[in-house]
């Protein structure tokens, strides 16, 4: 099962390499990874998605918690949460396709953020499956380049991950 693990990490050099190194060292798989500073400049927020059965995920979270620089950690998939990913996608757009692609982008609430005579660059946000559905709708043959941020997530309701 896919899990979204969200971590408050000391904003220090080398902290990220410990998290990533742990995954490599113990043979865990990272599917997506995103990391950026928070409103508290001493902390970074790191979100990663990984696959595994309950026992494996339990080991992953325990091992992560052992890292001195991991301040707090939550498996967002254990509760109600919101997840988002941002994608910039460059697609071929010529002739009749231009209107079709524009329509599809509108349906997915994407925005065309750059235009050239034969190419549209579209920005799209949403959960991973929505981004994948968009690529499928456009058709992979049309796609020139995709750039995705990886999943960010946050719990629903009052629950917060903070110190």
């Amino acid at each position, binding site marked *: 099962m896919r899990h979204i693990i969200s971590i408050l990490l*000391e904003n220090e*050099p*080398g902290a990220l*390499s*410990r998290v990533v*190194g742990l995954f490599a*060292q113990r043979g865990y798989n990272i599917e997506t990874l995103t990391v950026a500073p928070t409103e508290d400049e001493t902390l970074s927020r790191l979100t990663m998605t990984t696959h595994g059965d309950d*026992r494996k995920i*339990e*080991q992953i979270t*325990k*091992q992560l*918690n*052992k890292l*001195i*620089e*991991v*301040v*707090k950690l939550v498996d967002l998939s254990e509760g109600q949460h919101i997840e988002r990913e941002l994608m910039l996608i460059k697609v071929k757009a010529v002739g009749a396709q231009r209107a079709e692609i524009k329509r599809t982008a509108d349906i997915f609430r994407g925005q065309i953020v750059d235009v050239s005579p034969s190419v549209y660059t579209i920005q799209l946000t949403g959960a991973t499956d929505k981004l994948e559905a968009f690529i499928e709708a456009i058709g992979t043959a049309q796609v020139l380049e995709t750039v995705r941020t990886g999943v960010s997530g946050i719990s629903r309701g009052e629950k917060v991950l903070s*110190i």
Partner: protein
Amino acid sequence: MELLSGGDMLVRALHEAGVEYIYGYPGGSLLHVYDAVYKQSAVKHVLVRHEQAAAHMADGYARATGKPGVVMVTSGPGATNTVTGIATAFTDSIPMVVISGQVMSHLVGDDAFQETDMLGVSRPIVKHSFSVRRPEEIPELVAKAFYIASTGRPGPVVIDIPKDMTMPNERYEYSYPKKVKLRSYTPPQRGHSGQIKKAVELLLKAKRPVIYAGGGVIIDGSSDKLRALVDRLDFPCTQTLMGLGCYPGTGDRSLGMLGMHGTYEANMAMHNADVILAVGARFDDRVTNATNKFCPDAKIVHIDIDPSSISKTIMVDVPIVGPVGNVLEEMMALLDEAGETPDADAIASWWKQINEWRPRHAMRYEKNDNGLMKPQEVIEAMWKATNGDAFVTSDVGQHQMFAAQYYKFDKPNRWINSGGLGTMGFGFPAAMGVKMNFPDHDVVCVTGEGSIQMNIQEMSTCLQYGIPVKILCLNNGSLGMVRQWQDMNYEGRHSNSYMESLPDFVALAEAYGHVGIQVKSRDELPQALEDALVKYKDRLVFLDVAVDPEEHVYPMQVPMGSMRDMWLSKTERT
């Protein structure tokens, strides 16, 4: 407030952290620090002959004293030479602080002379690591390093110090923190009361219980508490390779070691148990054998300070995260409160069963008629000669297993070996670290002619500092454990397990300024041991003892089997 250079701050901070000895080797990036070492006398430095040995010395010191061992090495090769020593300490949860020099900050990343990314190289094998970025933070980082290394599940911590952090002419305010607090690191102080209560209820209902005790008991200094619980409940207690001595090896309730080369009765008791209390042990693959066949009837209680050790390889029924000592104390208190005792009839019939198992193998081995000794009898003789009270270190292989099986450790911290990583070359420097801190005790390194050559250069260090350890080399002219596996699994094809052209160890010991004694047959051994321990009490003695190369270590668990599937001799299987 006093003004000190970075180098002086480092040495002062080490002193304030309680350091008596630094084991190390100087080099370019640490010259300022070594000058600071020279200018004081509170912290003594021991100059090794190879940096790996410095790490093992610090490790031996830590295992015998319970205090963090300290290593100091220069950048690049100095630092990378400690890697095996750091990994050894990491795997066995040994507190250690490693100070590694680094090139000047402005050269970092330029592939400068003797530059290695030590933090990167050591990252998977440390509990934590720091890089010094401002000289004034040195005291705080030292305090943090010792706190992290020695609390919770202990482990090695590296502090990487670029040379420009230690400039003699740049002085800063020195202040050593009285207390260390890290918001992201809070080792557990006590176990969960509800879980402990559940565990006690389970123990009281047990009919075929076993207490499976590991190195965590020794690390926590809780051997007395374990002993009290075992004796109070009248339960059998088996120890892991790392746990030997946490319950007296000669005690009636001891089943000896369990696992791959454990005793028949320990492995049988585990397999047939209905309740297992695992204390500071981690269900290592050398204990469990095939995990899917592990102890089919047992409910398992597991006490460990590291949550990630729990249900990692074996799912347990009652996990308790906490320091062993505190949890055992609470268990005793609950037993007092409940005033109940386990089912006496059930426990008596369980003991009857165990006592029927005991004679089946009873650590038997056959002696040769021609005087060529079996390794087992050498260990037994050494046990007698040292009254079972020596610090014994070992390297890795057959001799290690024989020492673990035949030297009955009655006290904790006396058996010092690389159990987790299995590092050849560990035993001798570890023995040196022990001897320097226990000068009045016998310290014996049980080794083989293979392992000893991995750090034999330290005989020179021993002469310089007067470290009279005893080296008991079980010389069978081959890499015994490799050879055993080749006998058992490769139809006796001894690929590269025979050591040709061995040095004359006696002459070698003498060349280093020590005493060498060769022992070729059984009748020479008692005198040789007495000479080593009494006549040459204050000298390093290298005992080169010829032993039978054909001998195998038994019992030996059958690969992929359950705990009870064992070879008991070359021909007898359970």
